[in-house]
């Protein structure tokens, strides 16, 4: 039988030596002798240290190296040569299967990556609080204003003004209730509360003291203290700077995601997109509990009964089937037991926050004519 032939490069120069290949010493302790054309021995590789770098399909070619000389290359081309070489030492010159050690390493790296992503996920919200504290209130107000405008344009059609209700009496009622609560809040923010003409039972706070109540929420409420309870809750979010923290958190997440998976040539999310996300975004449980407690405290100090939010929540939770949109708002809020504990101090002491006349005006804020022609 013809000895298998190959081509050998030593990894030092691009010189190529035509070689014949011999296996000596049997398969177990065998070694591969690489012999040059002049009969000179160019290299001797023990079979155990030989690595198959690549193999052409169907045994059409092999590229070999050796652990002791990883820069050297032995090319064995053509079926005859590959088969001939393999016949010399059955079992050798095969690609190694994945070893358990390699698999363990892959598993370890996968786990580490997962842990890193999880750490990022949990660390980001905590990083956000100190950063939010650095943002000047004046910025927040301007950004909030821009977001409010954007929401108006996105949700309210071409005339952004259409979205926000302009009933003057209702607005005055809302302003008085807001003023009473603001008077007892320790905050640099100036509160501006609007009612948006949308059917969902929802309310949200935007950075810079802007709060939006959706008309669906006012319709779903049966008593003024329920709406005032929600208002106090949202104002508490503002006092605690949750909207700004939420905005920064969203921005942080989008920066990380854009860097990892996105197309960085596209620009960052616009304010409109951020505004859209604000409507959708959820506070953490801890944020909600904080806002609940502070909201109740503010109501109490302002002399308003504090059972409104709780009553509203419980009644609507019973009717959740009928009001699916309600779930969207409260799904991230603490379950009722938790909330009941947080608002355990809820009392019926104090007034409803709005006079019957004011309550009627607020309910009509989106249908009433704009009496004086301005907001």
């Amino acid at each position, binding site marked *: 039988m013809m000895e298998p032939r190959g081509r050998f490069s030593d990894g030092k120069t*691009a*010189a190529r030596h035509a070689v014949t290949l011999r296996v000596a010493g049997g398969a177990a302790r065998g070694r591969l002798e690489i012999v040059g054309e002049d009969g000179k021995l160019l290299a001797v590789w023990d079979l155990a240290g030989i690595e198959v770098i*690549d193999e052409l399909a169907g045994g059409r070619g092999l590229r070999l190296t050796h652990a002791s000389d990883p820069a050297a290359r032995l090319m064995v081309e053509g079926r005859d040569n590959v088969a001939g070489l393999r016949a010399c030492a059955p079992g050798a010159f095969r690609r190694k299967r994945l070893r358990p050690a390699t698999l363990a390493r892959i598993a370890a790296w996968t786990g580490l990556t997962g842990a890193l992503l999880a750490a990022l996920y949990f660390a980001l919200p905590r990083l956000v609080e100190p950063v939010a504290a650095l943002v000047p209130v004046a*910025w927040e107000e*301007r*950004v909030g204003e821009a977001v409010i405008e954007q929401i108006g344009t996105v949700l309210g059609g071409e005339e952004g003004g259409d979205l926000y209700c302009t009933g003057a009496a209702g607005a005055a009622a809302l302003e008085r209730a807001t003023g009473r609560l603001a008077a007892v809040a320790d905050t640099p923010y100036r509160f501006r509360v609007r009612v948006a003409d949308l059917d969902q039972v929802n309310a949200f706070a935007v950075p810079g003291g802007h709060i939006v109540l959706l008309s669906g929420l006012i319709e779903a409420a049966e008593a003024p203290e329920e709406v005032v309870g929600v208002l106090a809750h949202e104002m508490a979010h503002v006092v605690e700077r949750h909207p700004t923290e939420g905005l920064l958190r969203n921005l942080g997440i989008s*920066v990380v995601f854009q860097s990892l998976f996105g197309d960085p040539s596209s*620009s960052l999310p616009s304010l409109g997109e951020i505004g859209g996300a604000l409507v959708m975004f959820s506070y953490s449980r801890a944020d909600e509990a904080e806002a609940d407690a502070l909201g109740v405290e503010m109501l109490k100090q302002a002399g308003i009964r504090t059972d409104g939010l709780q009553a509203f929540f419980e009644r609507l939770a019973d009717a959740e089937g009928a009001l699916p949109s309600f779930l969207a708002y409260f799904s991230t809020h603490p379950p009722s037991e938790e909330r009941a504990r947080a608002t355990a101090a809820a009392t019926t002491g104090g007034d409803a926050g709005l006079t019957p006349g004011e309550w009627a005006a607020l309910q009509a804020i989106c249908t009433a004519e704009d009496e004086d022609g301005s907001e």
Partner: protein
Amino acid sequence: MESETTQREPVAGARRALIAFGGREGELFGIFIVNLILAILTLGIYRFWAKTRVRSYLWAHAGFEGDRLEYTGTGKELILGFLIIVIVVLVPLFTAVAILRLALQASAPEFILVADLTQAGILIFLLPVAVYRARRYRLTRTQWRGVRAGQTGSALAYGLKSVLLYLLAAFTFGLAWPYCSTRLTAHKLNNTWLGDRRVAFDGRARPLYRRFLAVYSVYVLAFLSIPVVAGGALQVSPDQPMSDEVGAVLVLYALLLLLLIRIPWNWYRAAEYRYFASRAQLEGLRFDADISGGALASLHVGNTLITIVTFGLGLPLVYLRNMRFGAARLGISGEMDFASVVQSAQARPRMGEGLAEAFDIGGAYDILGI
């Protein structure tokens, strides 16, 4: 037919193919499908190893002077390079721009454009940097007869040169492009090595101008047609919104414009390939590219159609088409004493093409990257 093309011994001196390519559809699709499944299962993280496997296959089936190339990069290098870039460059950059935007939104909304332009400027600079770094990574991971290829020169310098040349091209309404392109190609080729031997390139822009001006005049005509067509549309249908027929004509016109931009460019690009190849030299080896505009256009149109029609599942076909195109049309002649070529002593980047990965700039399977 038994394809042992990579084994065929070239005749020294005579004109011969630069690359003998023996890759096969079935084999590459096998790799591709497994890659796809693993990439989906790992939420895309496997893509670094996927790219490595495809490269290993393509390189291993590309023969040069009778010996197959070898790709020595690893998935680990690619993912580390990518993560470093994300942490050191992209997150700080995007955070800074996000803060700048918010600050401007609050204080001076009319200057928000400045933030966007700053970001665009930085990205325009980073793109050529990414191209150059990726090319260095690929070349230093390309090995032949045990000897590494390589690329010298600083990526930042290349990025800066690119930005200046882009500006020159912009200020001359594109007329300086052949000059810019030649300078950048010269920068890349003159920094390309095989072992301790360097490629020499002495191309000049002038011979490219005849072809360039022909293509350019097509662009001028296309550009001039815009006000004519828009004016015509307004005359036929002055009221808003315009009639469906006029709208349909305008859509067709926009498509035609797109083709007028994309297709003729191939004739210029083909001239570049031919000329650049003819001016490059590696010791005694001369290069040539037998590439016509029509052939290049049909390669690109075919690749685009394959990608769209198969929703990306046909990408292995695109890789094979590109390799076969090069194998069929790139040639060398002359001789070189390879036995005297010494292993490269250049420092190799320890990590992979992070920026290029982040920007997804393509050319991932392009061995020479010209």
